[in-house]
C-alpha cells in the first residue's frame, strides 16, 4: 500500500464515514479503498454517464472510421491495406482541397477574432439597453449553418440578389457581379458569409473575458493619465490573452469542420475554388460510395485537428 493511500485511510478513520469503516474492521482493505475512492471521485462519477455516452456516440464511430480507412469494415472480405493513404498522397484534388481549407480557416478565424473583439469591446460598455444590442449581436449565430448558406446565396445572386441590386443603384458599371461563380470572388464571398455567421461565438468568449477584468484597473490607469490606447494595450490585451487562446483554439476546430454553409452556397465550386475538405469527404462517402477512401480523408482531417488542439488541451490541463 502506498503512502498516499495510507494517508487517505487514516484520514478516513477520523470522518463520519470513517467511523463506519472502523466499525467494520473485518471488511477487506480493497473495499475500504474503493469506498474512499468513490467518495473522493464524486465529480468524476457525475461525469461518467456523459463520458460513456460520448465514447459511444463519438468515440466508436471515430474508431470505426480509422478501421475503415485500412480495411473495408462493411465488406465480407477484410484485407488490411495502406492503399487509401497512398492514393491520398497522390491525389491532386485532395491537396487542393486541403489548401483551400487552410486558407478558409485562416481567414475566417482571423476575421472572427477581429470582428468579435471590436463588437465585444463595444458591448462591454456600461450603457442603458446594452442587453438589446447583445441580443442583436448574437442573432447571426442562432441561424443554422444551412439556412445562412441559402440566405447568402440568394443575396449573392447575380441577377436577383440584393447586393448587386444596391451596387446597381449606386451606379456600379457591371451590375452582374458573379460573387459565387467567379473563381477569385467565390472563396472571399463564402468567407464573408461565414464571418457574419460565426463571429458571435468568439465575441461571447471575449466579452466574458472583458467582464472579468477588474474595473479598478481601468480607473487606476485613468487616474495615472493613461490614454484609451494605453489602457487597451496594457490592461485589456493582457487580461484577454487566455480567452483569446481559448477562442482561437475552439474556432479553428469549428472552422475545419464547417460544411453546411459552404455546401449550400457553392457545393465546392466553381471548379475547386471553395472545395473545403469536409465537402470533399462528404462527396467521396455519400455520392461516390468510396467509403474507405473517404474514411482515410477524414482520418487525415482529424489528425490535423488533433495537432491543432494539443496546445489548447495542454493549457486546460495546466489550469486544472
Amino acid at each position, binding site marked *: 500500500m502506498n503512502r498516499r493511500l495510507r494517508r487517505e485511510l487514516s484520514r478516513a478513520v477520523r*470522518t*463520519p*464515514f470513517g467511523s463506519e469503516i472502523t466499525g467494520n474492521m473485518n471488511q477487506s482493505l480493497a473495499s475500504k479503498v474503493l469506498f474512499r475512492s*468513490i*467518495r473522493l471521485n*464524486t465529480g468524476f*462519477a*457525475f461525469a*461518467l*454517464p456523459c463520458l460513456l455516452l460520448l465514447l459511444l456516440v463519438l468515440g466508436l464511430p471515430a474508431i470505426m472510421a480509422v478501421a475503415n480507412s485500412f480495411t473495408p469494415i*462493411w465488406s465480407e472480405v477484410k484485407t488490411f491495406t495502406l492503399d487509401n493513404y497512398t492514393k491520398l498522397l497522390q491525389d491532386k484534388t485532395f491537396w487542393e482541397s486541403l489548401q483551400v481549407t487552410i486558407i478558409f480557416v485562416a481567414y475566417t478565424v482571423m476575421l472572427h477574432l477581429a470582428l468579435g473583439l471590436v463588437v465585444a469591446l463595444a458591448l462591454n460598455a456600461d450603457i442603458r439597453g446594452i442587453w438589446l444590442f447583445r441580443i442583436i449581436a448574437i442573432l447571426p449565430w442562432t441561424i443554422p449553418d444551412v439556412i445562412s448558406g441559402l440566405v447568402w*446565396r440568394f443575396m*449573392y*445572386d*447575380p*441577377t436577383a440578389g440584393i447586393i448587386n441590386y444596391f451596387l446597381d443603384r449606386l451606379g456600379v458599371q457591371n*451590375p*452582374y457581379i*458573379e*460573387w*459565387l*461563380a*467567379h*473563381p477569385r470572388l467565390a472563396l472571399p464571398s463564402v468567407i464573408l458569409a461565414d464571418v457574419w455567421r460565426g463571429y458571435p461565438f468568439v465575441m461571447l468568449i471575449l466579452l466574458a473575458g472583458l467582464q472579468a477584468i477588474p474595473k479598478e484597473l481601468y480607473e487606476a490607469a485613468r487616474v495615472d493619465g493613461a490614454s484609451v490606447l494605453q489602457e487597451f494595450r496594457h490592461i485589456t490585451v493582457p487580461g484577454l490573452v487566455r480567452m483569446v487562446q481559448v477562442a482561437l483554439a475552439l474556432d479553428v476546430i469549428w472552422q475545419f469542420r464547417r460544411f453546411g454553409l459552404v455546401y449550400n*452556397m*457553392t*457545393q*465546392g*465550386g*466553381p*471548379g*475547386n*475554388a471553395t472545395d473545403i475538405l469536409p465537402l470533399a469527404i*462528404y*462527396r467521396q462517402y*455519400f*455520392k*461516390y*460510395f*468510396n467509403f474507405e477512401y473517404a474514411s482515410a480523408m477524414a482520418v487525415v482531417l482529424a489528425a490535423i485537428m488533433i495537432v491543432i488542439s494539443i496546445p489548447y488541451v495542454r493549457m486546460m490541463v495546466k489550469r486544472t
Partner: protein
Amino acid sequence: MKKFVFLLVVGSLLMTTAGCQAPTPAATQPPPATQAPAAPPTVAPTKAPQVVTLRVSNWHLAEKHWEKTIKDAIPIFEKENPDIKVNLEVISYAEKEAKYATEIQAGAGPDLIHLAGYSIRNFVESGYLYDITPFIQKEPVGFLDQWYPHLVELFKYQGKQYGLPSDYMAMILAYDKKLFTEAGLDPNKPPKTWDEFLDYAKKMTRDRKGSGKTDTWGFGTVGTIDPGWELRFSPVLLSHGAAYLTPDNKCSALNTPEAKEAFKFWVGLVTDAKVVPPGVTSQGAGAVRTQFANELIAMKIGSGWTAPIIPTINKDFNIQENLGAAPMPVKAGKTLAKTTTAWYSGWMITKNTKYPEQAWRLLKWLTSKESDQRWFDGARVLSSRRDVSGDPDKGIKAYQPILDDKFSQVIQAELKNAQINPQLKEWPQIADTVNKEVQNAFTGSKSADAALKDAYDQINKILAPYRKAGETCPAY
C-alpha cells in the same frame, strides 16, 4: 451531507443504466386473466389479416404537383390490399443517396425507395437492395417484357434483379414561344442545328425590359455540382457525335475531335456568346426553372417535369400557348443514332425490409400500367413500360393522353434517340469530374482545351481498376 452525495451519485448511475437492462421475467408476466362473460353463439369470425406498414420514400413528395398525384393514388392500393398500410416519407432529391445509404447501413432503411438513374448502379452493386428474382420467377412468363428490355437490365447485377424501372423520358429543348416571337423568330420553327440554336440564343439575349442592361438571355442551364448537370450537358455531347467513355468503359472518350468540338461549343455559350445568365456555375435546376418561368431565359434543356413545374413558379406563364418543345438540336450534317440523353428512375426494395412479400406487391403495383398512366395524368412523367410510352417496333401504341399532349409527344418521340448514361458505379464521380472542369472553363480558370484534357486524365485514373495491368488509354 457526504453520505447524501454518495447515495445521490450511486442512484444516478443506476438510473442511467436501468434503461439498458433487459426486462426481468417478473416484469413481463402478463396481468392475470379476467373471466370473460359468456358470449352468445355466433358463426366463428374469420381471422383478420395482419396489417403490415410499409415505409415508402420518394423525392417526388417534396414537390406539390407530384405529391398530390402520389397521395391520391396510395389509398387505391390500400383499398385493394387491406393488409398493407403505406407510410410515405419525403426526401430531398439532392440528399436521397446520402440518407438511404446511411439508413440502410444502419438497418433502418425504408421498405421501398425510388432512385434516379444517376445513382442506381451504386445501389444495385452495393448490396443495399433486396433480390426480387425469386418473386419475378413466380410471375407469369414474359412478366419483364412489359418494360423496355434495356431498362430492366439496368437493375440486374450478377444475374439477379434488384428493382423495376419506373420513369423514362428523353431530354428535349423547352422554349418560350412568346420570347421567340418578340425577337422576330418563328415560334413554330425551333432550332434544328446547334448553329441555329446559337443564332437564336444571340437574338434573344437583349435588354427586353428597357433596363439599360441585358435582362433576358437566350439559354439557361444547370452549372452547379448537381446530379442534374449531366442531363443538360450529355445531349450536347451526344448530338455532336461524342461520348464520355469508350464502348468498353475502360477509358475516357473525351479526346475525340467531336468531344472537343462539343465541349468548346458549350463553354463558348458562356465565355464568348454570353447567351447564358451570369452566375451559371452556382445555378441548379430550380434556379433555371425559375428563370424560365419568369421569362429571363428563352430556352432550356428539360423534360416531362417542365410543364407542370413552371406554372407553380409563375402562375401567369401560359404553358398551353407559350411553352414549346423540340428535339435537341444536332450538329449540322451529322446523322446520329443517339442525339439526346435519357432520364430514368426505378423502384427498389431495400434489404432492410421485414415484409418482402408485401413490398413486392407494392412494387408491382407502383410500376403497373394503371399506376404509370395515373402518374402521367397527374405529373406528366412518361413511363418505362412499353404499354404506356409505346413501342413502335413492337406495334405497341402509347397511352393516348401522351400522344395528345404537345409537350409529352415530343419527349415520347425522342425516346428512340435517347442514350442511357454509362452504367458504372463510378458514374457520379465521372460526371462531377467533367462538371468541375466545365466550371473551370466557364470561369476562365482554364482554357476549354486544358479543362477537357484534365477531365480526360482524371476520368482515366478513375477507370484504372477496369483496365488490366499494362493496358493504357490513348493520349489526349
